[in-house]
C-alpha cells in the first residue's frame, strides 16, 4: 500500500542521494522518504530491478550516439545525461568510482570507442565480485593499450600491467615483490586486442579482446607464495583473496563515498582516518569473497556513513550533475550536453581521460583559485535564472508556503529546497541576518512578488556560492 508516511528523514535521504548518486531535486528526496532507509539502499544495490536510462530518444538528437563512437564529448554528455536521469544512481556512481581507481585514459590511444566501452564495462560490473571486475579490466582493450599489455609477450615481457594491477588496482605498494610483478606480467602474456581501423577515412571501429595462445607463457610461476603455471585469471584469483587487496580497495571506497582521505601515494605511511570503518568493510569483503555489493551494503548502512554529511569535496562531475539536478535541466535530451565535457575539464576533470594511472587527486586538491571560480561561476550561471524548471519550483514553493516568508524559516526552507544542504552555523546566521534586514517576504502585489522573487534568487545565489555547496 502506498502511504505518505515519512519513513526516512529527508536530510539523510539527501545525503544518501549525494553520495550514492549525483544529488537530487527536492521532489525526488520527498519521494524516497516514503521508504525505509535500508530499503532505499537495497534498491540502489540492485539496479537491475529499475529500468535503464532510455537511449533511443537521446540517440535521436545526439545523432552520433546511434551511429558510431567517434566523439568523446558526445559520449561524456550522454554520461552526464545518465547521471541526471538514472533510476540506478549507485550503478552510475560505481562506474565513476572505478573510473577513478582503475584509471584508464584516452590521451594515449585517442581511440574513443575503447574508452566508451571501458566505461560501459565499469558500469556493467561495478557492483559485482572484485574478481570479475579485475578480469574484465584485464581483458579491456583500453586498459591493455594504456598499460602496454599488447606488448607483453611470452619471450619478452612488459611488466607495466603486472606492476599496476598490484600497486594501484588491488594491493597497494609494500605488499608484493618485484618477482611477483614479473610473474604477474608473465601470466598476462598473450592478452591483447584486435586491430581496429583508423579514424580516417570512415570513422573509428571497435576493438575486441583476444587471447593469443602462441604468445602466452605457460611456464610455472611463483606468485605471492603460491606456485603453479598460472594464467591471468588465476593470478586475479590470488589477488582478490588477499587481505591487502580488501584493505586497499575499501580505503578507496571510504575515500570516495565517506570522507576525503590523503592521496594514494601517502597511504603506505598514513593510517586511514577511520580504521574501524575500514575494518568493517574488510570483514564484509572477506566474508563475501570480495563481493562489492556486500561491501557497499555495509558502507551505506553504517552509522559512520550516515554521520559523514558534507565532509567530502564534490568532484567536478558530481558538482555539475548535482547543480543540473537542482536546475531541472536535461530531463530530456536538449542541446548543450556536449559542452558539459569542457565545463568539467575547466573544473579539473576530463571524464574518460584521468591524468595518470593513479587517477585524479581528490578532496581539497579539486579546489584551487581557478577551479573554485569555475565552480561558483557555473552554479550561478546555471541557477541564476528564474525560468529554469527547478528554480521556478523553488520560487513557487517559497511563495506557496506562508511560514517560509518569515526570514529565519525562509533560509531554512531554501536550504531544504536546494537538496537539504547543511551549512555551518556561522554561514547560516549570516544568511538569516541578511534575510532579516529585508523583513518578511510578501507576494501580495505584483511589485511585492517581484521583490520577493529577487530576494529568493539572491538567497539561492548566496547558498550555491557558499563553501558548503562545494561539499557533499
Amino acid at each position: 500500500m502506498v502511504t505518505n508516511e515519512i519513513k526516512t528523514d529527508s536530510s539523510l535521504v539527501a545525503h544518501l542521494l549525494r553520495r550514492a548518486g549525483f544529488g537530487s531535486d527536492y521532489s525526488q528526496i520527498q519521494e524516497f522518504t516514503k521508504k525505509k532507509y535500508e530499503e532505499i539502499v537495497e534498491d540502489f544495490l540492485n539496479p537491475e530491478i529499475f529500468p535503464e536510462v532510455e537511449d533511443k530518444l537521446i540517440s535521436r538528437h545526439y545523432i552520433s550516439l546511434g551511429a558510431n563512437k567517434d566523439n568523446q564529448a558526445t559520449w561524456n554528455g550522454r554520461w552526464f545525461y545518465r547521471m541526471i536521469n538514472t533510476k540506478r544512481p549507485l550503478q552510475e556512481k560505481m562506474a565513476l568510482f572505478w573510473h577513478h581507481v582503475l584509471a584508464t585514459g584516452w590521451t594515449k590511444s585517442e581511440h574513443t570507442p575503447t574508452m566508451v566501452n571501458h566505461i560501459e564495462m565499469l558500469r556493467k560490473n561495478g557492483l559485482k565480485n572484485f574478481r570479475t571486475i579485475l578480469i574484465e579490466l584485464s581483458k579491456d582493450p583500453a586498459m591493455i593499450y594504456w598499460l602496454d599489455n599488447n606488448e607483453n609477450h611470452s619471450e619478452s615481457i612488459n611488466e607495466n600491467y603486472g606492476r599496476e594491477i598490484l600497486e594501484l588496482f588491488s594491493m597497494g605498494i609494500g605488499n608484493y615483490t618485484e618477482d611477483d610483478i614479473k610473474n604477474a606480467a608473465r601470466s598476462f602474456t598473450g592478452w591483447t586486442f584486435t586491430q581496429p581501423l583508423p579514424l580516417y577515412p570512415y570513422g573509428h571501429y571497435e576493438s575486441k579482446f583476444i587471447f593469443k595462445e602462441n604468445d602466452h607463457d605457460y611456464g610455472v610461476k611463483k606468485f605471492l607464495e603460491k606456485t603453479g603455471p598460472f594464467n591471468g585469471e588465476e593470478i586475479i584469483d590470488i589477488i582478490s583473496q588477499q587481505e591487502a587487496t580488501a584493505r586497499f580497495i575499501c580505503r578507496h571506497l571510504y575515500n570516495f563515498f565517506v570522507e576525503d582521505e590523503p592521496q594514494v601515494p601517502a597511504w603506505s605511511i598514513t593510517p586511514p582516518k577511520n580504521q574501524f570503518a575500514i575494518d568493517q568493510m574488510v570483514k564484509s569483503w572477506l566474508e563475501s569473497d570480495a563481493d562489492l555489493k556486500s561491501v557497499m551494503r555495509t558502507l551505506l548502512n553504517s552509522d559512520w556513513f550516515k554521520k559523514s554529511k558534507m565532509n567530502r569535496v564534490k568532484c567536478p562531475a558530481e558538482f555539475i550533475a548535482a547543480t543540473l539536478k537542482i536546475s531541472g535541466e536535461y530531463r530530456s535530451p536538449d542541446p548543450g550536453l556536449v559542452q558539459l565535457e569542457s565545463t568539467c575539464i575547466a573544473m579539473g576533470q576530463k571524464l574518460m581521460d584521468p591524468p595518470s594511472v593513479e587517477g585524479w587527486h581528490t578532496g581539497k586538491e579539486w579546489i584551487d583559485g581557478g577551479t573554485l571560480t569555475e565552480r561558483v561561476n557555473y552554479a550561478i550561471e546555471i541557477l541564476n535564472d528564474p525560468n529554469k524548471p527547478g528554480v521556478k519550483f523553488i520560487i513557487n514553493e517559497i511563495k506557496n508556503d506562508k511560514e517560509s516568508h518569515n526570514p529565519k524559516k525562509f533560509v531554512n526552507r531554501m536550504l531544504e529546497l536546494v537538496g537539504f544542504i547543511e551549512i555551518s552555523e556561522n554561514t547560516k546566521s549570516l544568511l538569516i541576518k541578511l534575510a532579516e534586514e529585508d523583513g518578511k517576504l510578501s507576494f501580495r502585489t505584483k511589485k511585492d512578488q517581484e521583490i520577493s522573487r529577487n530576494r529568493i534568487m539572491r538567497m539561492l545565489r548566496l547558498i550555491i556560492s557558499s563553501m558548503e555547496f562545494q561539499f557533499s
Partner: protein
Amino acid sequence: MSKPYALLRAGFPFYATLGMRRVTTMPMDLAIGKDQTIYVLNRMDEISEIRKINWKDEDLGTIPEGGKNLEWPVQILIDELDHIYISDEAKNKIIILDTSGKELDSWGEFGSTNGKINRPSGICFDKDNNIYIVDTYNHRISKFTKSGTFINSFGENGSQKGQLNYPWGIDIDHNTGDLLVSDWGNDRIQKFDYKGNFINDFELNNELVGKLDGPAGIAVDSHSDIFVADRGNHRIIQFNHKGNYVERFIGDAVLSKIGRTYLMANARALRAREMTPLEETKRFRGPTSVRIYGDLMYIPDLGSHRIQVYKKEAYELDETNILPDTDIPFLYNV
C-alpha cells in the same frame, strides 16, 4: 520514370561511394542542386554545415556562412529555384538559403498550438510547392506555404492507426499525392492522403529480416516504391506501394576516390587496414536518411561519414505483360 502497372525488378546493385570523414562528416541528409552538386548536411552534434561535393568525389567546400545558423538540422531540400530549405529541430525553424549560403528567410515559432512547431524533423514539398513538416514533439504533420504561412495540420500522439509517436521522416508519393510518414516511436510507416486522412499503416514483420527499429528518413520513388532508413537496424528497407517488403540494403561500400587518396598517403592507416577484416566496413552505421534522384538511391551513411549510392534496375510492365493484381498466393508449375 512514372508509376507503371507493375515492375520486373531486375536488381538494385551498389553503384558508388562518395566522401569521407572531414568532408562528409556525419552526413545527416543530402539534396542535389540544378547543376548536380550534392549538398550534404553534416550534423556533428556540436556544429553543423552544408558541404558540397560532386560526382568526381571532389570536396567543393562548405556553403559560406551556411552552417552559422544551423544548430540541430535534420533534413535538407532544394526547390526548383535552387533555394535550400533546412529543418532545424533545436531552433524550431525552417531556414532558407541560396546556394551561396545567403539566408533568404527563416520561419517557425516554438509551441503546440496550430501554426507552431516543436522539434521539426522531416520535410517535403507537395505539388503546389507547399511544405509539409514533421512536427515531432507535437506528434503531428503541419503544412505551411514556403513562406511560412500555416495551412493545416493533422495527427496526435498515440499508437492507434492514424496516431503518431515522435514521427521523423516524410515524403510524398507524387503519383497519388499521398503522404508517407515514418512513425519513429511506433516503428511503423503510415500513409495519409493530402488532407491528412489516414489510409493505412504497415510495419516490417518478416521472419528473415525482423522489424523496423526507429524508422527515420523516408523516400518514395516514381514507381511509388518506398524506402525507409531503418536506423536502429543500420539498414534501408524497401517496400512496394502497398507496403509489402521488397528488399533490404545493409551497405556495400567500397573505398571512395577521396578515401583512396587519403589512405595512399598514410602508411600507418594502410597498415591498420591490412591487419583488419573488412567485411564490417562495408555496412551502414545509423543512417538517418535515404534520398531518391531518378534511378539512384543515395544513403548518407552517417556513422561512416560517406554517401553510399545504389542504382535501381527495373522494367516497367503493362497489363499485357503480367497477370492482374492479387494478394492471393498460388502455386504453379511451368
